Structures are given as structure tokens and as C-alpha cells.
């Protein structure tokens, strides 16, 4: 039998060499496969970021009118703003002033815009064209004029250049986000409005100006062009504050207990398994918990950042506990023994010696946990945070939305051509916030680590 020990050295090597080429080819193939996987992943991510940036960045600039508004005293025909009389109580004065403001609110501000537009177009506007004309400027801008006037009544009779947002459809038209060759029936704007918009754009009356509305306004249904993120941002801010105030102390405390003090028994084993599992429970389940307990049982208000914050706190807790425990575990035992040896009690050892050393890890883990909570959407939908809210919430008990939920609401808006870009812009804002939180975590880790 010719097996390998009998085979001569040369034969043996020959056998091995014969297969070498194909084995090396296989090696190369495998390696390329790995590289291909990495590259595929990277490319997909690149496409993701590129497509969102490409769509979203233009939305930070919005079609805006610079209109010469004449505050025509025939139209703005209101009485003098009341002045507080001597001896008049504050409440009485406020009531009088409020009455005056209502009067101002009843002024036909739209007429001023119409007139200014007609002026800018240099045309006489037929009554049947009013609709087309009013499709140019977004409807909420009437209130901008009103507010300007309440602020400064000396405008009366004057002409001022005022920045007014174009309507969403004009923005889409100017930016070319709709196929300009579509037949009239499929266009959002009438032929007349489109022609006017083009004309005004050429004249420089409409320009693409940086959109402060995106940051300063709240969501809007009637005046889509002025929909902004301010309300959602405040909602998210309140929730993050609640998450930080609750989940970090509770999470760190329970991690300290489990890692440093808890006796090793069935119960703590159970808690440990339980925490690991909670970390992997789908976020939507936490939403159901919030709906059942906080809304259904405790009757907390729907759509409130308070409830959202509580739900996200419960969701973030396991992350923070796990990160803190890892940080505590990485502190060498010699430090504990040294402190105990000096006569410190166990509590003193942990709080004076171990905890400060574990701080970088704890901070990093906490920030990452909070960042994760910031991007969470699904549980918030179940506690009513997808409601339309047009006010900036002043307290965590007020109705509010949240940044990721606002993204969800905007992506579903029927005016796709406008909201695709606006949603992308909102995503950019959200990602920027999350990335800065991540960067903060990395920076903190680096900075604090070098200290010891």
C-alpha cells in the first residue's frame, strides 16, 4: 500500500504541491469575499448618508419672498393701541390690550400680501385670479404681518421689505422637485401661479434663503412651508432631560448594588438575567407598557413628554446598568482591597475610590444610552406622541411630539415632493444631534481616561 509514510519525501511533497495552487486560490477568494462584505456594507452606508444629505441639504434653504409690503392704513384700519391709564389695574389693561390685539387679528392681512404681489408682478389681478395669487405665499405669513404690526405700529402707512415664505408648492416648483413637463392636471399649481413664480424668481423677488422656519416654527398643517422642528425639538429635549435625570441615577445605583454589594444568590442571578433580557426586549413592547400602565392605569396625559420620558427611561435603564457594571468590573480589585485595608467601609470604598475611577466608562455608557433613546420612535407612537401639536410645549406635561416622531409624521405627508426634502432635513438634524452626543462620549472617554 502506498501511503504517506512509505511514500518518499519527494512524492509526498509532490502530492502536497499539486493541490497548493487551488488552495491558494481559495484563500484569495475567501479574502476577497471578506473584503467584498466590508465594502458592500460601507457602500450601503455611503448611499444611505449620501441620499439623505442630497435630499435634505437643499431643504435648509427655502423659497422666500422679499416683498415690499405697504401697510395701507385703509386696510389696516384699527384703533390706537391702548396705553395703561393711571389707576387702571394690570388685569383691566391686559384685557383692553387683548381686545385691541383681536381687532388687529381681524384685519385682512392677506390683502396686503395680495397687493404687494400684484405690485411686484406689475399686473392688475382679476378677481378670479386671486386663488392663483394666494397660492404663492404660504398662508401662515398673514400672521407674520400681524405680529410685525403688533410689535411696531409705526409701520402703519409705510412700505417695508418683508421676508415671507413661499408656499410649499412654489418651493417645490422653483427647486425643480416636480417634473416641470407634467400636464396641468398633474401639477399642484395652476399654470398662472407657475408662470408668476418663475417670473418672480427671475426678478429676484423669490430667492432661496436659509430657512429659519425649519428651526423656529412648530409643525403646521395649514401652512406646510412653515412647518418646523421647534416643537418636536423641545419635546425631545424634555424627554432627554427626564431620561437623564431618572435613568442615570437609578441605572448607576442598581449597577453599583449588583456589582459591588449584592450577595450572589438566586435573586441577584434572576435580576442579572432579567436585565440582560430587558436590554433585548423590542422597544415597541416598552411602548405597550407605557400605554397600559402610564396612560391606561395611571391616567397620565396622552402625548406628554413626561410619559415619553418615563417609557424611554425604562428602555434605557438596562443599557446604562450593563455599561456601568462593565466599567465597575474593569476597576482592578487591588484598589478596593487597598481602600478596605486602610479602614474604609465598603460603602466608602465604592463611593470614594471605585466610582470615580469608573466614571469615564459610566459617562460614556450613559451618553450612548441617552443618544439611543433620542432616536427611538416606535414606543412614542403608542403613547400618542404622534398627535399633531402646533404649540411649543412649555412643560413636560404639555402635548408634544419628538424629533423622530416628527420625521415619521412628515414622511407620511401627502405633499411628498416637499416633505421628502423636509424629512431628510429633519433626519440630518437628528443625526447631527446623535453624532454630537456620540462624539461627546468618545471625547469624554479619551479625556478622562488619560487622568489615571
Amino acid at each position: 500500500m502506498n501511503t504517506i509514510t512509505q511514500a518518499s519525501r519527494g512524492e509526498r511533497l509532490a502530492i502536497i504541491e499539486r493541490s497548493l495552487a487551488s488552495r491558494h486560490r481559495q484563500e484569495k477568494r475567501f479574502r476577497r469575499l471578506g473584503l467584498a462584505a466590508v465594502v458592500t456594507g460601507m457602500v450601503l452606508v455611503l448611499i444611505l448618508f449620501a441620499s439623505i444629505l442630497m435630499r435634505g441639504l437643499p431643504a435648509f434653504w427655502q423659497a422666500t419672498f422679499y416683498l415690499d409690503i405697504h401697510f395701507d392704513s385703509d386696510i389696516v384700519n384699527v384703533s390706537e393701541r391702548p396705553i395703561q391709564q393711571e389707576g387702571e389695574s394690570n388685569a383691566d389693561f391686559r384685557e383692553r390690550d387683548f381686545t385691541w390685539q383681536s381687532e388687529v387679528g381681524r384685519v385682512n392681512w392677506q390683502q396686503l400680501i395680495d397687493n404687494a404681489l400684484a405690485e411686484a408682478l406689475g399686473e392688475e389681478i382679476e378677481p378670479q385670479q386671486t386663488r392663483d395669487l394666494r397660492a404663492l405665499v404660504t398662508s401662515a405669513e398673514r400672521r407674520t404681518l400681524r405680529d410685525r404690526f403688533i410689535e411696531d405700529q409705526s409701520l402703519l402707512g409705510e412700505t417695508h421689505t418683508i421676508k415671507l415664505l413661499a408656499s410649499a408648492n412654489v418651493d417645490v416648483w422653483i427647486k425643480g422637485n416636480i417634473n416641470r413637463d407634467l400636464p396641468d392636471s398633474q401639477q399642484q399649481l395652476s399654470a398662472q401661479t407657475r408662470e408668476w413664480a418663475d417670473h418672480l424668481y427671475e426678478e429676484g423677488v423669490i430667492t432661496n434663503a436659509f430657512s429659519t422656519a425649519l428651526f423656529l416654527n412648530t409643525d403646521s398643517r395649514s401652512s406646510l412651508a412653515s412647518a418646523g422642528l421647534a416643537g418636536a425639538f423641545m419635546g425631545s429635549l424634555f424627554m432627554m432631560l427626564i431620561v437623564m435625570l431618572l435613568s442615570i441615577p437609578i441605572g448607576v445605583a442598581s449597577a453599583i448594588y449588583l456589582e459591588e454589594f449584592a450577595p450572589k444568590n438566586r435573586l441577584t442571578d434572576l435580576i442579572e438575567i432579567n436585565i440582560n433580557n430587558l436590554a433585548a426586549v423590542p422597544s415597541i413592547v416598552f411602548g405597550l407598557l407605557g400605554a397600559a400602565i402610564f396612560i391606561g392605569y395611571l391616567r397620565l396625559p396622552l402625548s406628554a413628554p413626561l410619559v415619553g420620558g418615563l417609557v424611554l427611561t425604562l428602555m434605557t435603564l438596562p443599557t446604562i446598568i450593563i455599561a456601568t457594571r462593565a466599567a465597575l468590573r474593569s476597576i482592578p480589585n487591588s484598589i478596593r482591597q487597598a481602600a478596605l485595608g486602610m479602614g474604609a467601609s465598603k460603602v466608602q470604598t465604592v463611593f470614594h475610590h471605585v466610582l470615580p475611577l469608573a466614571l469615564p466608562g459610566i459617562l460614556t455608557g450613559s451618553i450612548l444610552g441617552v443618544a439611543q433613546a433620542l432616536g427611538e420612535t416606535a414606543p412614542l407612537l403608542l403613547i400618542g406622541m404622534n398627535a399633531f401639536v402646533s404649540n411649543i410645549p412649555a412643560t413636560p406635561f404639555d402635548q408634544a411630539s419628538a424629533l423622530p416622531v416628527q420625521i415619521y409624521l412628515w414622511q407620511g405627508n401627502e405633499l411628498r415632493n416637499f416633505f421628502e426634502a423636509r424629512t431628510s432635513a429633519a433626519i440630518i438634524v437628528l443625526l447631527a444631534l446623535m453624532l454630537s452626543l456620540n462624539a461627546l462620549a468618545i471625547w469624554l472617554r479619551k479625556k478622562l481616561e488619560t487622568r489615571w
Partner: protein
Amino acid sequence: MNNLALIVTVLIVMAVAYQLGLTRSKSVVGGGQRLHSRPGYYGILVALWCGVPTLLLLALWGIFGNDIIQFLVSQQLPPETAAFSEREMLLQMRRIAALASGQNVSDPQQYELSAAAQQARLESLGHLVLLASMSVLAVLGLVLSRRKITPDMRARNHVERVIMVALALSSGVAILTTVGIVLSMIGEAMNFFRFISPADFFFGTTWNPRFSTSGDAGQGEFGLLPLLWGTLMVSSIALLVAIPLGLMTAIYMSEYAPPSLRNVAKPVIEVLAGIPTIVYGFFALIVIGPFLSGLGDLVGISIRTTSALTAGLVMGIMIIPFVSSLSDDIITQVPKALRDGALGLGATKSETIRQVVLPAALPGIVGAFLLAASRAIGETMIVVLAAGNNPVLHANPFEAVSTITVTIVNQLTGDMDFASPQSLVAFALGLTLFVITLGLNVIALVIVRRYRQQYE
């Protein structure tokens, strides 16, 4: 005084109590006696005695006070309100509360006005009682604990015991969360099963819940199977994408990549894992969906823009970092000695990986896959946006589907009505989801833990 001001006041009183305890502890020492603990601990102890019961009382009032007042007010409403439904009653109480706080209510009835007056009276009375009892408690706590200070009082041990209790209570929150999830799910699911039999739910093949108008509850059909099927279809597609890509990425990163690439790619992957899923969902909707649909047109297959394929593909992309970082951890745990053994026999690197490292890491990797599967099954926003919400049993991945998570969102957003099966079904679905993911997680964690022990 509102609650915030109350809390701040209590904190200030606690600070004063701390000082009082501190000075007292210093003054009781004399005649060569030494304090058992450092003076600060006596201060903390007094502050705790003074503040904690007070704050507890405030918290209790915050939770139950309103209910007590509401109950008392509702007691003296005229008998005809007894016939009100729960919802009408809630509305009624809101009107009264609004009246009581001085707001205008359209067309207030006489009985409402008197109830409101009583509510206002009770509220101010309650507030007074609260203030008084808080003050009494604070003073009592302060005086009694301060008096108890003696040099050999073991203040540090007392304080430490309080700290321990606080720490232990904190770790109880995690348990409470789980208990809360389980109880609320089971409770509400039971309510649902009063309308629909469990057999119809778990084995039903039609999902058609109708609208959430109470009364015609029996009309809808609540079959879980189409949703479960959709969930499995989307998750399978996601895993088919994520497992090969994630695993190969992990292998390349841990075995082949030069350190420079690894140093860049690892943080990038970490960041990717943190991108909110709503972003992936939007990406699916505006890029991948249309792309796949166009691709389908090219080869003559009809692929819907929102389909199981779109959602699964994007979910797969989302899970890649998750799979790769878990697999990376597990692969690097395979001892170097095993690799050396194979390399020393003349195996090439890929042979070593495929024939020795991966088999050795298999249990851990399987665990990682199970965790990824649980992630995919519980993922919500991507499917909400990209799966198309079509709860029908079919096997075509190019068609729209619906999943458990999508349906939970659909059934529970909008008007929440805890009395209709249309809302309650969300909890039965949530329970199903929870049980599935919990099962996967437990198995995965056990496998991974065993695997770790094997190489420790």
C-alpha cells in the same frame, strides 16, 4: 405653592437639618469621648430623617391626592350621573376640574358649579393638610433624630444602611419593569380574549379587525397567522442579508484587516449601530424601494415599492453592524492556540478560519444569530414605513406584507380605547412578540454564556 417649590423647600430644610445635626454631634462630644463616626454622617442622618418621610408624603399625595378629591367630588354628584359611561364620566370630571380652576366651560350646569366649588374647597383644604403634615413630619424627624445623637451612635452605619436600601431599591426597578410588562400584557390580552377566543387569534388566517367603533366588536377577524408569517418573511430576508455580510465583515475585520482599517472601521460600525431605525425606514421608502421596483421592471418581475423584500433588505442592512460586532467578539475569543495548531499543520489562513475557528466559535455565533433574529422580529419603524401593511397570507416576497409590530402600531395609535378588541389586540400581539423574543434571547444568552465559559 406648587410641587417644585415644595421640593426645593424640603431640600433647604434638609440642608438646615444637616447643619443642626453636624453642630449637635460636635457639641455632644466631651470628656475625652470620641464620636463613633465623622460628624458629617450625623448631619446626613438628621437630614434624611427630616427630609425623606416628608418627601414620601408629598409623593403619596401627588399620586393619590387627586384621586381622593375626585372620588369625594363624584360622591356628591346628582344620581343621574351614575348612569354615565366611563368615558362620559371622565369628561364630566374634566369639566368640573376646569370650572374649579376658574376656566370657562360651555354651558355649565348648576350641579357642576357646586361640584366645582366643592372641588376647589377640597383642593385648598388638601393642600393645607399636606403642608401642615409635611411640616410636622419634618420637624418631628429633625428634633427626634437630633436628640438621639450620642457619641457612640453608629451614624455611619445607619447612613450606609440607608444607601444600601436605596441602591437595592434601584435595582428593583428593572424587575418591576419586567413585572409591569408581563402583567400589563397578560392583563390586557386577557381582556382581548374576552372578545375573541384564543384559538381564533392564534390560528386564524384572516386579519381584518374593521374599525374601532364599539358595538360591532364581533365583526372583525383577528387571525395572527398572516402577521406572524409576514414577520417571519421580513425577518428571514433580513437575516439572509445580515448574517453573511455581518459574519464576513467580522471575519475580515478580525483576521485580515490591517490595524489602520480596523481603527477606522470599528467606530464607524459602532456609530452605524446607533442610527435610529426611522432613518433606515425612510431610506427604504425613498431609495431602496424605488430601486428594487425599477430593478424588477428591468427583469420583468413586479416588485412593489413597499414590500417584504424592501423592508427585509433594509432591516438586514441595519442588523449588519449588530451581527458583525457580536461575531467579532466571539471570533476573537477563540484562543490563538487553536489557530496556531491549524497553521502549524500547514493550513492556510482561510482554511484555519473555516475549518477550525468557525467550528470552534459556532455556538457563540449561533447565539449571535438568535439575538439578531430577535432584533429583526421586534423591529418596528422599518416595517411600518417599508413593508406596505398588507396582512394577507402569501409567499411572494415582492408583495406587501404586514408584521406583528406594524399592526401593534396601527391598532394603538390614534384614539386609545381600552374597551374595544381593536385596541386590545395590540396587547395580545405584544404578548406574542414578547414571548417570541424572550425565548430567542434566553436561548441565545444561555448559548453565548456557555460558549464563553468554554474558553475561560
